[in-house]
């Protein structure tokens, strides 16, 4: 065990600069090395690191079981992501990815609100750059919207944190109760980043516009760092149960309607984070364990699903389910890895999802919330429907094996396959050894997921959900559409209103300018001014009078 006096997050945050200045094999080596070094530091550090900042006791590096779990999973995901990205990501993107992953690790390893805020904003900046690195017109616009939403969440968070820290004098990261509007502002800041309503649309809007490897990084960090923050500060807050339930069903319904394969997965993120938010709302030790477990396995299997979708996008150039299908024959590794990811998200026995999801249901049951348990069960069936079957079916099967796309596509490059296989390995490993995984959770776990009854019940749920899917397949065929969401309000009426108002103001200003300056002297470059400009009596008279009156007033005020 070693004593380190800085947050392990700084390895990736500062190391991102190395990625910026190097290239080729050196950059790839550094990209793979940084997350591994971070992981080693997290597990060999003996204690945290405290200091004083502006008169407040802060703890930039705080070792807690919850933090270690999140940070380790982030670091592992960063390694897999870098392996996936290293051959085709641009310099900007890789640097931003390292900064982003490092900041997320920083959030999970911090012990005070001030450090949290710094890393939170770094995450926002870096992730906006990742969206921008998608390098298309749509990516640029989506990045602007994404940036605005995150500025909003950052501002709310800053407002809440400054007020709370200043009024209590205590900056440490601790549970807060919702008794002041500033604490509500902190909650709002966390929830916006988690993808809670009314601002859930940014996830499905921005994530699919990034590059194949960019989305792999994007999907893993912001929302789960927000879940970590919620668990640290707002565990047991009842309103989170309602918010989480909305997110669960919102994700399922929108994903069922969606055509773009990565948007389906993005809505699925909202759905899964909804489960975590519900567990956070329940707040018992089992529920907190459940949320933490679900968050960490989700990081891995969602990364795996996005890698699979990203590989398909890279090799086919297509992103819509209506353009895809039948790729199982030509992209076997990608398809199989995608299917393992789909199995994990659906909580198929022997995968990591089964081990973690069961804890959430168990915590609802233990807390005596029968209606909630039923709602979560409906949600579980819905997850299999939209992510477990829909995504692999429409991308890899759907009866289109004989179409030209299926026949001419080739498998993804080896580094991408390796990255996917690594994540598959982790999903199955956790599925096979739940006790070892439970040992990493913040509180001791007294739960056995592999009982005969539980496996049978889950299998029944999944098999009959699959039957329902195939029976309703004709109604689920893809349409080339999007589904409107609450972001419509800030994308259509408000911009149009703002444009109309500024057009109105511009017209009035133009009229006044014409009146005061008919020769447009004030708006011309000095070389374009007419020779007789300074003989223009009205203007020079006006200027002279203004100066004279101002000086007179100043003297008058000064001497009276």
């Amino acid at each position: 065990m070693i004593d380190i006096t800085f947050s392990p997050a700084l390895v990736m945050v500062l190391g991102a600069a190395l990625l910026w200045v190097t290239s080729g094999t050196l950059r790839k080596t550094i990209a793979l090395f940084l997350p591994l070094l971070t992981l080693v530091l997290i597990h060999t550090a003996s204690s945290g690191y405290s200091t004083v900042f502006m008169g407040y006791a802060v703890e930039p590096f705080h070792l807690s079981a919850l933090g270690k779990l999140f940070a380790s999973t982030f670091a592992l995901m960063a390694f897999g992501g870098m392996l996936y990205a290293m051959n085709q990501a641009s310099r900007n993107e890789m640097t931003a990815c390292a900064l982003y992953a490092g900041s997320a690790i920083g959030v999970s390893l911090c012990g005070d609100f001030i450090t949290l805020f710094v890393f939170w904003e770094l995450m926002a900046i870096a992730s906006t750059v990742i969206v921008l690195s998608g390098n298309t017109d749509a990516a640029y616009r989506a990045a602007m919207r994404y940036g605005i939403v995150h500025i909003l969440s950052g501002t709310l968070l800053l407002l809440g944190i400054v007020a709370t820290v200043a009024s209590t004098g205590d900056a440490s990261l601790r549970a807060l109760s919702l008794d002041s509007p500033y604490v509500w502002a902190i909650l709002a800041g966390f929830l916006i980043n988690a993808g809670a309503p009314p601002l859930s649309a940014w996830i499905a809007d921005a994530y699919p516009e990034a590059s194949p490897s960019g989305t792999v990084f994007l999907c893993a960090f912001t929302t789960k760092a927000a879940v970590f923050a919620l668990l640290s500060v707002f565990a047991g807050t009842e309103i989170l149960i309602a918010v989480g339930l909305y997110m669960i069903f919102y994700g399922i319904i929108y994903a069922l309607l969606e055509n773009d394969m990565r948007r389906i997965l993005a809505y699925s993120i909202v759905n899964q984070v909804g489960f975590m938010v519900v567990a956070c709302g329940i707040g018992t030790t089992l529920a907190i364990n459940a949320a933490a477990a679900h968050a960490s396995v989700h990081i891995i299997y969602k990364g795996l699903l996005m890698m699979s979708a990203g590989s398909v996008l890279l090799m086919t150039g297509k992103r819509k389910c209506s353009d895809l299908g039948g790729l199982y024959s030509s992209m076997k590794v990608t398809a199989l890895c995608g299917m393992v990811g789909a199995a994990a998200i659906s909580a198929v026995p022997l995968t990591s999802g089964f081990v973690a999801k069961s804890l959430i249901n168990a915590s609802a049951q233990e807390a005596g919330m029968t209606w909630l348990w039923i709602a979560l069960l409906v949600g579980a069936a819905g997850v299999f429907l939209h992510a477990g079957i829909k995504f692999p079916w429409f991308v890899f099967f759907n009866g289109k094996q004989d179409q030209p796309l299926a026949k001419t596509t080739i498998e993804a490059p080896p580094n991408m396959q390796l990255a996917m296989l690594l994540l598959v390995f982790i999903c199955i490993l956790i599925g096979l050894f739940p006790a070892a995984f439970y040992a990493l959770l913040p509180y001791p776990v007294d739960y056995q997921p592999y009982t005969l009854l539980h496996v049978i019940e889950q299998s029944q749920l999944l098999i009959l959900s699959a039957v329902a899917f195939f029976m309703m397949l004709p109604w689920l065929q893809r349409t080339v559409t999007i589904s409107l969401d609450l972001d419509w309000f800030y994308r259509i009426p408000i911009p149009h209103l703002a444009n109309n108002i500024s057009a109105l103001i511009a017209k009035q200003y133009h009229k006044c300018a014409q009146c005061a300056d008919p020769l447009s002297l004030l708006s011309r470059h000095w070389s374009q001014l007419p020779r007789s400009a300074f003989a223009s009596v009205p203007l020079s008279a006006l200027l002279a009078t203004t100066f004279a009156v101002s000086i007179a007033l100043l003297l008058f005020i000064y001497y009276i």
Partner: protein
Amino acid sequence: MNKERYKLVALLVATLVGIEYLGGSHLHPGFFAWFGFASCVILVIVALLLGKVIKRKDSYYHD
């Protein structure tokens, strides 16, 4: 899905329900099966209904 596959699935589910009954669940056997099926049907119906209201062409937001 053709008839043979349906028969296989039905057999599988019946086996599972049977084991569950023998295993002694505090809910009636087959609960998870019909619940999963009904949930999916209802979710798809709700999605299709909501889709009639909120679906727009792909290019709706192209600024």
